[in-house]
């Protein structure tokens, strides 16, 4: 089983992600360059965080025109799992592989902080090994993390159980006080209609070393990959 970590000019969490998946979890992982036209031979694709192509125009917009994002679309259409973290989530929404958009935080500030997120569904290849309601602590580091979508889309996401994670307090309570960026309904991560594409703003790859503040990211990645192996 082989995992792909996709990198664009301006990606800056690619090393963290590869480190977490390879050295903390022991998986077979390779970097994949943005000019690559196919993801044949890989079982899962990760789009890492950063500022792809400088995030000019809108965060993640320019990256959607690369050959590798066309390859990610084909890969996703075959039902293969794709996970976008932070800028990766922004790219997936810009590429219309996930609904909605990520806009400037309501505070207009870049937020770099530890947050709690609650696992809202276990019905996904990403969270199947995590109990629903589990609270995970992970860092966020973003300027454009406010999830927005029209009312119909939000209703559909809620009804179809496609909210992956929501910002919450340490007791798992979702409220405005725990919402760092003004996302609708405290949404921190969502799933595609077929549930094989997911995006989240928090950084599980930065929560895989005790020395760096926590290991909850390991639980998240273990859940994903154990599903692939099953």
């Amino acid at each position: 089983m082989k995992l792909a970590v996709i990198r664009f000019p301006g990606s800056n969490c690619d090393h963290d992600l590869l480190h977490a998946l390879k050295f903390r979890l022991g998986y077979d992982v390779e970097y994949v360059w943005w000019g690559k036209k196919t993801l044949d031979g890989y079982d899962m694709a990760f789009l890492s965080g950063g500022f792809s192509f400088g995030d000019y125009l809108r965060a993640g917009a320019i990256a959607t025109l690369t050959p590798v994002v066309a390859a990610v679309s084909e890969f996703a259409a075959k039902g293969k799992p794709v996970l976008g973290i932070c800028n990766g989530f922004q790219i997936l929404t810009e590429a219309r592989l996930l609904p909605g958009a990520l806009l400037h935080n309501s505070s207009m500030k870049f937020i770099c902080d530890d947050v709690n997120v609650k696992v809202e569904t276990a019905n996904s290849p990403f969270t199947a090994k995590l109990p629903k309601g589990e609270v995970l602590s992970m860092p966020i580091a973003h300027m454009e993390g406010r999830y927005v979508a029209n009312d119909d889309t939000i209703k559909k996401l809620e009804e179809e159980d496609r909210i992956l994670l929501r910002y919450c307090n340490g007791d798992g309570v979702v409220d405005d006080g725990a919402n760092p960026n003004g996302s609708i309904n405290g949404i921190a991560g969502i799933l595609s209609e077929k549930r094989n594409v997911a995006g989240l703003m928090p950084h599980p790859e930065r929560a895989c070393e005790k020395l760096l503040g926590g290991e909850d990211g390991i639980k998240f990645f273990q859940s994903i990959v154990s599903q692939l192996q099953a």
Partner: protein
Amino acid sequence: MKALVIIRLKDGILDPQGEAVRQAVRALDKAKVSNVRIGKIIEIEIDGADKTTAETSVRAMCDKLLANPVTEEYQIVDIS
């Protein structure tokens, strides 16, 4: 040909940048500024195209990249 495109956030989408500017201009001037919204202007120069062809390609650029239809709307204000 030179095209001028304005991109705006759709009505109802919170614009925190506009809100910060609204508060600032209120401090600057006593006028009761009730709302400020910030968009983008994009100038595009196209070589060797007639107006109709240029407009078709600018529209395609807007639909595919320059504006995000989920949150924004665009207007081609001039092509000449």
